[in-house]
């Protein structure tokens, strides 16, 4: 008596699933990105779907390694993937992403030449990544703790802030931060011992290691910290949208800059939809709304940045040529380097106990 019911149920499920699959193949764009990072904003998806008829399906990753694994293990599933430019090389070498025909992306012409011409995104005259946004890993301060904002990275070592300093729990970021503090090139660290010594002396200052924007914002909200490493886009969000007393400081010694770009995986089923989606993501209309409603890093599209108000942080501070001179863009890191950085970072964390 149960069998026919079960069969009927299974058949029904099968029919529904195949119907869904049919609808899916019509025009779906599968996007792989960080969660809460622009591409999954409901208003943006609605606008894109209305304009192009493509349906957006979002999937997320929690680390670059996870993103690469998802591409490796699901060939043909994703149409668009957001890759930090420092990882583009690895994705291309593993044949996970394909060259992009930029003539199909009208907004590509407005991308600032230094970003579009980044050697990390193009190889043999072919474009493997369309620059989307860039930002800094710099310092941010709790404005309640400072009369005047500090200008030097050495403020992190100031005894006055003992036990009220935070740094992100990320080996690569920590080591590159140490490189800047010791006046080295973040992509070619010659004196690892100096970095280690500098970070060792920072450890007694640390309150905790943060891992998400929420950690940082909560600690500022409850006035537990004075200063720490932070991302430029996040500091902007904390100030404008959570109304927290947070200000970004780009130290005179410099800061780590990163560039995020969109790529199209090998075997993508809807390349036209992917191109349309990337075009929309770098469009000024999307960017201005993203900055105003949510807070965002700096667009790689010059017209998008120009569409912001004069005094907008992403235009005034981040666009300052003086800042551009100080920052260092992250270059690719080998697996061996990453493991060495982690070993160093873990050692520092263990010795502090």
């Amino acid at each position, binding site marked *: 008596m149960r069998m026919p019911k079960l069969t009927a149920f299974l058949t029904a499920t099968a029919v529904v699933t195949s119907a869904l699959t049919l609808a899916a193949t019509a025009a779906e764009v599968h996007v792989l990105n960080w969660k809460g990072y622009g591409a999954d904003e409901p208003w943006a998806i609605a606008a894109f779907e209305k304009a192009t008829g493509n349906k957006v399906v979002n999937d997320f990753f929690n680390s670059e390694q996870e993103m690469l694994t998802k591409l*490796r293990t699901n060939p043909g599933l994703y149409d668009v993937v957001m890759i930090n430019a420092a990882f583009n090389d690895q994705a291309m070498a593993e044949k996970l992403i394909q060259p992009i025909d930029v003539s199909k992306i009208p907004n590509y012409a407005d991308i600032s030449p230094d970003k579009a011409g980044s050697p990390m995104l193009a190889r043999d005259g072919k474009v493997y990544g369309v620059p989307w946004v860039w930002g800094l890993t710099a310092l941010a301060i709790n404005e309640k703790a400072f009369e005047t904002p500090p200008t030097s990275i050495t403020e992190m070592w100031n005894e006055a802030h003992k036990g009220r300093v935070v740094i992100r729990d990320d080996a690569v970021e920590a080591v590159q931060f140490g490189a800047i503090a010791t006046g080295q090139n973040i992509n070619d660290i010659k004196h690892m011992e100096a970095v280690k010594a500098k970070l060792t002396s920072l450890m007694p200052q640390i309150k905790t290691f943060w891992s998400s924007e929420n950690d940082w914002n909560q600690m500022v909200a409850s006035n537990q910290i004075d200063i720490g490493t932070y991302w430029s886009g996040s500091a902007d969000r904390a100030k404008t949208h959570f109304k927290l007393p947070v200000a970004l400081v780009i130290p005179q010694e410099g800061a780590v800059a990163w560039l995020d770009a969109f790529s199209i995986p090998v075997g993508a089923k809807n390349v036209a939809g992917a191109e349309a989606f990337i075009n929309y993501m770098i469009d000024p209309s999307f960017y201005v709304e993203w900055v105003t409603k949510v807070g965002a890093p700096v667009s790689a599209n010059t017209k998008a940045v120009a569409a912001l108000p004069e005094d907008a942080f992403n235009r005034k501070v981040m666009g300052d040529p003086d800042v551009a001179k100080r920052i260092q863009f992250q270059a690719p890191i080998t697996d061996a380097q990453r493991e060495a950085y982690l070993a160093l970072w873990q050692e520092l964390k263990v010795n502090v106990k």
Partner: protein
Amino acid sequence: MAGQVATGSRSGLRSALPLLLPAYLWLTVAIFLPLSAMVFFSFMTELPLAGKAWAFTLANYTTFFSQGLYWTLLLASLRLGLEVTLWCVVIGYPAAYVLAKVLKGRSREAIFLLVILPFWSNGLVRIFSWAMVLREGGILDTALNAVLPFKINIDLMYSYPAVIIGLVHSYVPYMVLTCYLTLQAIDDSLIEAGRSLGASRLQMLRRVIIPLSMPGLVAGAALIFVPVVGSFMEPRILGGRTGTFYGTVIEDQFVAVFNWPLGAALSFILLAVVLVILALASPVLKRAA
């Protein structure tokens, strides 16, 4: 008699097979196979993804012995396990005794519910609640300063005590439950007999109640010690800069650098160490039990 028991149990096994099958099938599919895969990974140089070349190696295991870092962390984690277990006994055993021997009826049910309650809430929620209580200017700090005539500054957040508090809170129900079961099984007439023979309260506890409830204490301790040694979530969130333990390092290998082989090797070393400790302790515990 012995033969009878043997044939009885054999036919019992046959009839029990359909009952056992789902559980064992589930264990095979959900636990044994992934665990075997992890054993396999732990001997590899590289995960075999996207046609990457890999080979068998012992390097992941030798890394543990060649770097003092992992030893230090393992010892720290074992100490954490012991301390948490100890606090769970101190807090859980008296509670279990009261539940089993003192309270009856409705009040027992109510207290029981309070003990079980943490089980019903998500682990992360519990930890973040502790974060609100323990920090400077948090609930504990504010409440104490409101009551006490002098000013004290309580900032337990991001410290070793905070990790202990969070873990004890998460695991104390295990101790209460296991001890409750054995304490409840103690025949009240034994206690009355001891009393009538003139034993003091302390003697009763030492000579009658603790020995008889030892199986529950041992089971609770094992249930708590093993997961606490490998814990990573509580230390990471509550421990701040002192929150690096063996478990958090394993998590880093899986999540941050994607070095599954090393992460798997470290996990199996932990498993081995824990098994050795339990094996060494078992004669002592058996005698005690």
